[in-house]
C-alpha cells in the first residue's frame, strides 16, 4: 500500500486517483473536525484543507504523520475563518470557547443524553483545549503529534490536556452530572 507521502507526491504530479485515495483515507477525520464547529461550511473547509496540504507539501517533511500535518492546516483554517468572520485579527483559540464564537448549545448533535451533555460541556472549553482533548482522545493522536499540530512543546500540551479534563469535569458537574472522566472518555496516554 502506498504511503501518504507517495500518494501526495503522485497527486502533485497530476495523478488524481492517488489524490482520491489520499482524500478517502483522511476525509472522515477532517470533516468531523470541521462539522461540529462550522456546520454547513465544513464542505468548503474540508476541501481547502486538502488543497492546502497539496500546496504546502514541501513543509510536510515526513517526520510527523500526514494526519498531524492535515490537522495543523485545519486548525489554521478554522482560526482564519473565525478571525475573518468576527473581524478580529487577534482572536486566539487559547481563551475563547466555541460558545463564545456563537455555537449554539442546541446545535450539539447527539444521539444520547449523555453525549449531548458532553458535547455541550466541550463547547464551553477554550477552543484549543477542546481541540487538544478531541485530537488526543478521539482521533488518537499522541501528545507529541498534538504538540506538532499546535506547534507547541510537548510538555505544554500535557499540561493543557490535564487542564482540559479538569475544566470539562467542572462543566459537567455544573450540569448536574457526576462524571468519572476515565469512564466517560476513551483511554489515552496518561497526562
Amino acid at each position, binding site marked *: 500500500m502506498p504511503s501518504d507521502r507517495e500518494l501526495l507526491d503522485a497527486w502533485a504530479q497530476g495523478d488524481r486517483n492517488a489524490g482520491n485515495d489520499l*482524500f478517502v483515507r483522511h*476525509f472522515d477525520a477532517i*470533516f468531523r473536525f470541521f462539522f*461540529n464547529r462550522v456546520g454547513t461550511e465544513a*464542505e468548503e473547509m474540508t476541501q481547502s484543507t486538502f488543497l492546502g496540504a497539496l500546496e504546502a507539501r514541501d513543509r510536510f517533511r515526513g517526520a510527523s504523520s500526514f494526519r498531524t500535518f492535515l490537522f495543523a492546516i485545519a486548525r489554521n483554517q478554522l482560526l482564519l475563518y473565525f478571525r475573518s468572520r468576527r473581524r478580529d485579527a487577534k482572536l486566539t483559540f487559547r481563551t475563547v470557547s466555541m460558545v463564545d464564537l456563537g455555537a449554539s448549545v442546541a446545535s*450539539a448533535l447527539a*444521539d444520547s*443524553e449523555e453525549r449531548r451533555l458532553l*458535547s455541550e460541556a466541550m463547547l464551553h472549553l477554550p477552543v484549543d483545549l477542546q481541540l487538544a482533548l478531541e485530537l488526543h482522545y*478521539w482521533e488518537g493522536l499522541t501528545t507529541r503529534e498534538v504538540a506538532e499540530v499546535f506547534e507547541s512543546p510537548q510538555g505544554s500540551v500535557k499540561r493543557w490536556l490535564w487542564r482540559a479534563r479538569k475544566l470539562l469535569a467542572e462543566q459537567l458537574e455544573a450540569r448536574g452530572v457526576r462524571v468519572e472522566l476515565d469512564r466517560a472518555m476513551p483511554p489515552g496516554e496518561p497526562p
Partner: protein
Amino acid sequence: MPPEHPAALEAERVRRRLQARMFGVEAPALRVGRFELVDRIGHGAHGEVFEARDLRVDRTVALKLLFRPVQGDAEPVRAEARALARLSHPNVVTVFDAGIATVELDSTVSRYFIAMERVHGDPADRWCEAEERPWSQILAVYLAAGEGLSAAHAAGLVHGDFKPHNVIVGDDGLVRVLDFGLAGWTASAGGGRPRGTPGYMAPEARRGRVDARSDQFSFCVALWEALGGAPVGSALRGAGVEPVFPVGRRDPRRPGALTRIPARIPARIPARIVAALERGMSADPSRRWPSMDRLLRRLCARSPWRRAWIGLLPLGVVAGLWLAPPRTPECEGTEGSIGGLWDPSRVEQLRNRFESSGLPYATDAWNALERQVDEYVGEWTAARQQSCRDARSGDQSQRARADRQRMCLHERQRALAATLDAVAEADALAVRTASRMMADLPPVAPCLLPREDPLQPPPDLADAVARARARLMQAREHSRRGEHDRAIEHAQSVREIADSLGFDPLRVEALVRLGRAQEHAKRDGTEALDAALWQASALGHDAVEAQAASALALRAARRDQHERATRLMRQAEVAARRHDDPSLLREILIDSGTLARLRSRFDEAMAYLERAGELLAAHPTSGLERARWLRMVGVVHSNRGELEAARAAFEQALVEVEARRGPKHPALVDYLLSVGIVHEQQNELESARRILERALALGQADGSSASYNVLNSLGVVLERQGGFDQAARYYGRAKAQVELELGLEHPMAAMIDINLGSLMDRLDRDDEALEHFHRAAVICEDLRPDRDMELVAALHGKGRSLRALGRHRDAVDALATAVQIGGAIGLTPAMQGAPRMELAFARFALEAPWAELHAEFVELEQIFAEAGAGFEDELAEVRDWLVEHPAPAD
C-alpha cells in the same frame, strides 16, 4: 467530537461531492428512501434538515431526518403526518409526507423522515438578532406565527414545541411555523428528557400533559424574549412558575454568552402587551387566555387604527342600490282603494282633518273633494282592470301594450298619492286649493289609448339608423370593457350621423350613450345627459329618458345631492316602466340599488335588487346580466355584514361567468376580485391570495386595466399574512397603475396611500407613513365633501405618524381636523373615539390642562366601553392611561 452517527449522512454526502469536484470521481447523489440529498440546510435538537429532491413526484423538499432511532412501524408517524398534511395555512409550513426511509449507505439503517415545503428564510431567533428591529415588527412576525398556531389548534393539532427557532421568517416575507407535533415523535425512549424545549415549555408539559394552552405558554415566552423582556426565568417566577431551565437572553455584544438581563421588559412595550403575555404565561393553564385567538386579539397592538376603519373604506368593490318601488297593483281586490290611498280609514282621517281645521268652508270643500277623488279612483280602477285582463289574455304585443298602460296608470296613482298627501296638511291653503289640485291631475283615459311608435325611422332611413344603432351598441360594449375613448368616439360619430339624418330619436340615443361613456371615463357627462333627458322626454323616448335620468341620478348621488338624485331616479324608474323592455327596468332597478347603497340604505338597496332579480327570473338573458346582478347582491350583503350570503352570491356569479366565458376570460377579473375580497373578510387569507393572484394573472394576460383593485386587495391580504415587503410592493404597483390610468388625484390613489401609510405605521416607519397619509389627505381635501370618510382616516393616520415623530403640535392640528370632520359626517362616537384618543395623547404630550384631558379620557372610556366588540384595544389603552394618571386632586 463524539457524536459520529448523526453526522454520518452529511459526511457521506460531502465526501461524494468533494470526490466528484476535486478528483472527477463519478458518485451519484446520496439517497435516503426516495429522496436524493442535495444540500444540508441545518439541524436542531431532534434532527437534521436537508434540501432534497423527492424522486417520486420530482419536487424539491426540505427533508427532516430525525436522530431518534426508529422503533416499531411507521404507521403512527404516518397518521400524524397525514393530520399535519391536512393543515393548510399560510403561516404553517406545509408537510407533504412522513414515514421511515432506508439510508442508502447501510440498508439496515432507517431514519424517520418528514418531507416539508422548502422555505427560504431565517428562523425568528436569528431574524431578531440579525439587526435591530422595531418591536412592532417583531410583534407582527409573532402575530402571524400565532395565526398559524391558532389554525392548527382549530384543526385539533398541538405544536408541542413552539419556540423562535421553529418560526421561519421567509425571504418572501411570509411567516411560517415549523415542526408541528414533532415533540411527540422525538420524545426518545432512552433519554428521559421531557418533550419540548426546556426554556419554552409550559409547566404542565413537563408532566407530559400538552394541549393548545401549552402552546400558548410557549408562544408567550418566545414573544416576551423577542420583545426584549428577559429573562423568562423571572417572568415565570413572577407568574408563580419556577423556571425549568436557566434561560437567559443572548447579549448581542457577547454572542456566546447566556446573560441574565434585568427582569423588566423595555418600557416602550405597551403595558397591555406585557399584561397579555403575563397572562399567557400563567402557571395554571386555566388562568391563561381561553384561546390563541383571544390572545392574538389582545396583542394586535397597532391594529386599532386599521380595525377602526375596516368595513368603512371600500377595498375596491364597485356596486349598487336605491329607493322603495311601489307595489304593482293586482287586477282584482283593490277596487276603490287604489292601493290603500283611498280606503275608508284614510277617507275618515282626511275628513276629520278638514272638519277640525275650523275653516268655514271646510265641509263644502271636503264634499267636493270626496266626489272628485271617488270619480278619479273609479276611472283608474276600471282602466287598471281592463289593462290587467288584456295582459293576461293577450299575445305578446298586447301584453307589451298592457305593460305600458300599467306604467301610465302607476304614474297617475303616484300623482294622486302626492295630491292627497298635500291635502292631508289641511291648512288653509290646502283646504282651499284641494279641489283645484284634484282637477290638475293627469286624466286616466289616455293611458288606455294605443300609441304610435314614433321611435322607429321612416322606411328611407331604416338602414342608416339600424347601422348607427349597431354602432351605439358597440360603444356600449367599449364602455363596459373600460375602453372609454373609443366609446366616446363612437357615440360622437353617431350623434353627427343623427344630425345629418335629422332623426331625433337616434340623436338622443347617441347623446345618452355619449354622456354615460363620459361618466364612465370619469369625465363630466352632464351636458350630454341633460340634453338627452330633456329631448327624450319631449320625444317620449322612454328608454333614453330612463337611462339619462339614472346616469344623472348616480352623478348627483356621488356628489351628495341626494334630493336631486332621488328625484331623477324616480323619473328614470317611471320612464323605464313606461318602456316595454324589462332589461331597461332591471338596469334602472339596479342603478337605484346603487343609489341607495351609496346612501348606506342597504335594506332599501336589497329591496330594489330583489325586484331586479324577479325581472331576471322572468326574463332570463344569455349574457352576464345575472352574474352582474349577483355581484351587486353580494356587495349589499357584504355591506350588511352578511359575509356568508355575500360569498354565496359572488361565487355563484363567478360560476356563471366562467360557464359563459370560460376560465381564462378577462371578464372574470372583477368577479374573482369580489370572491377574493370576501374570502379575505372571512379570514381565509390563503385562498383569498390564490384567487386574487389568479385575477391578477388574467388581467395581465389580457393587458387590461383596473387591476389596481386586484393589486391593492392583494396588498391587504399579504399584509395580513405578515408579508409586509410583498404587501408594500403590491400597494406600490397598484398606486403606479392608478396614477397612470386615473391620475395622481384620483380618490383611489388616496385609498392606496392610506393603505401604504397604515402599513408603514405598522412597521414603525413613521416618516414614510406620514408621507402617504399626507398625500391621501391632500387628495381627499380637494374632493371634499365626497371623500370625507377617507379624509378623516388619512388625517387620523397623519396625526398618528406626526405624534410618533414627536411633532405633537402638528399632530394636534391634523387630529383636531379629523375629529371635526368626523363629527360633521356623523361618525359614531366609537368611530370618532379613535382619532379623539390620538388627539388626547398628543395634547397630553403638549401638557394640555390635566383636568381637561382627564375628563376627555373618562368620556372616551365610557364610549369605548359602550361600543364593546371591536374597541377592546382602545378601551384598554384609555384605561391604562387612566390608571397611570389618576384624577387630579381638587
